[in-house]
């Protein structure tokens, strides 16, 4: 599963390290679907991750999120499978041009579609290229002995990873080339799985909607139904603005992707800070003009509304200039 994220965000202190990776193998998993194997150029283990995690790859000026298909144990290789999108807007074309030996940069792994540890059973539903995070789920479920089944629908001849899936899942796998058949199967499975079952779905929007609606109609609690939707887990890099320091007269430009805090520090203005994540309250600065764009978890609603303070580590400005009492 693929999603396009906003352009590069600044990595602040405490953020995940950027990974430099080398493409070590390229293979075609199905028509239009390319599987890339990535490793550290010097070898060594890559960070472990929960099943269903994605890697954010820099590809041709964009940042794309691709699901990791492994079981999540720290390993020497990551694998992703990328569907070539014909309109070419998403950067998948750039990925399809990569060859063994190419270097790429990435952040992550990032987790937003993890299994639920208390689940008695997991129903995994995949449509098309949406198989990738669920392959990871299935591998981890096999490794850790968790109960699951996988329903995989794809267009005729377009199934990816089929041999691996059969070997991995055995009779826990149901493959459907016919949509009506897939939906009927989902309906009957959701109707009779035990209490405490969770369903995880990834695929085209109509498939996700069908699973959610069917589960809802059958009385499944919403927190038992999990859909892979790439949320912009990274903070948006935001618009550039200028910080004007009322007392010193200094004007500090804050580019997109750089925090107000980092820009002030780079300009030699000392600002106390601790978490750099908008939770600790250390970096609060008094605002005398301009509308703060609050992105922190610290300020209370009335303080936000008052607009006379800003948390410099994450928040920005809704206007071109933010005047600070500094």
């Amino acid at each position, binding site marked *: 599963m693929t999603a396009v994220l906003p352009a590069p965000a600044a990595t602040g*202190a*405490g*953020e*995940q*390290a950027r990974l430099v990776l080398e493409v070590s193998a390229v293979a075609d998993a199905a028509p239009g679907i390319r599987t890339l194997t990535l490793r550290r150029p010097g070898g060594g283990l890559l*960070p*472990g*991750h*929960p099943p269903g*995690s994605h890697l954010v790859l820099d590809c041709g000026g964009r940042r794309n999120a691709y699901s990791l298909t492994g079981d*999540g*144990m*720290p390993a020497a290789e990551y694998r992703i499978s990328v569907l070539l999108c014909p309109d070419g807007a998403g950067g998948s074309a750039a990925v399809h041009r990569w060859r063994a030996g190419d270097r790429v940069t990435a952040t*992550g*792994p*990032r*987790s937003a579609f*993890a299994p*639920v*540890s*208390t689940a008695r059973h997991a129903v995994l539903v995949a449509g098309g290229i949406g198989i990738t995070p669920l392959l990871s789920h299935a591998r981890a479920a096999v*490794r*850790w002995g968790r109960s699951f089944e996988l329903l995989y629908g794809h267009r005729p001849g377009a199934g990816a990873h089929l041999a691996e899936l059969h070997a991995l899942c055995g009779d826990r796998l149901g493959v459907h080339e016919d949509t009506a058949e897939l939906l009927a199967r989902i309906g009957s499975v959701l109707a009779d799985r035990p209490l405490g079952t969770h369903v995880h779905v990834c695929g085209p929007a109509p498939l996700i909607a069908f699973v959610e609606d069917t589960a809802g109609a059958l009385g499944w609690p919403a*927190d038992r139904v999990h859909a892979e939707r790439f949320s912009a*887990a990274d903070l948006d890099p935001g618009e550039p603005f200028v910080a004007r320091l009322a007392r010193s007269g200094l004007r500090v430009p804050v580019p997109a992707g750089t925090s107000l805090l980092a820009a002030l520090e780079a300009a030699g203005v000392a600002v106390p800070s*601790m*978490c*750099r*994540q908008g*939770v*600790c*309250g250390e970096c609060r600065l008094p605002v005398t003009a301009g509308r703060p764009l609050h992105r922190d*978890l*610290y300020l*209370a609603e009335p303080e936000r509304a008052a607009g006379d303070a800003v948390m410099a580590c994450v928040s920005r400005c809704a206007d071109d200039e933010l005047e600070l009492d500094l």
Partner: protein
Amino acid sequence: MTAVLLPERTTRFPFPFAADSYRYSTNVEPARRVAATEAGTWGAGVLDVDGEYATELALRREVLAADPTRCQQLPHMRVAAWDALTTLLPELAATLPGVTALRVRGDRWSWRNDLTATSTSFTVGDDDSLPGGPLALLGSQIQEDVVLLDQREGSLWADAGLVTFAADWSMGFDVGMRFLEVHGPVPRVHEAGVVQRAEQFLMRLQPGQEYRRTNWTMTVDRRLDTSTETYPVWARDRRLVVDDPALPDRLHLRVEVQHLIRLGVSNAVCFLIRTYLLSLRELAAVPAWRRRLGVVLAELPEDVAEYKGLSRFRGAAVDWLRAAD
């Protein structure tokens, strides 16, 4: 410049006060940054092994033998427990080169630690290969207490842990609770949004991210096991110490360096608590610490002092700390 040579316990002590007054806050910062104090530094790594290593691990063994409920693990925390072990053993190997050896061949791990006379092999994920389980092995190798939090239904749950050095709480009582429930007894933090913010922050941690914070209280004598379970043994000392001429030697500032790590494989949050004790007399060897602790203690709101269990002796402690001015 002071010419006095300070002991390691002092130079590595994570003195927690950055100002003359103390209030609860979501005081988290990235881990692995060396923090400088008036007397030295702390915080270079996630695990800390110091001169108390053997003593504290022996004490943990005794406490566990007397009360196995200090180690808790709900069944769904199996992966998280393995994850904690396989994340932290390599960390410990890096912290203790020479006296430890870790060999990894696929899922087959061998671990040797000369300081604890440990030599063991196990298969990751195979509970039968490690009698006692991953948490027990981990707890026998590191000075830190460990809590593992599961993330589901929009909350964190304290569903496993090995905690022998709790500051007046109980792992056996808290196991299975949500993060907000665990913090139920703490005054002020709910109204101030401190724990809600902390939980939001923790739930957004990505695989491998590591943060830390400090917390503090005071303890009579070098007693690490101040769990709720042993309350009858230690609580009365808080009253008795007031009139004891040995108060500056018996009363200790107790600081916890807490690490918050998102474990990759299991998605659990690993909470490590490392406890340091420094007596008022040891602390007073650093004049800035002596002055600051005196001011902070005197200024601390009564509800916080009461919750931390300082009310009985705080006046006497402040008097002693100030007498030197």
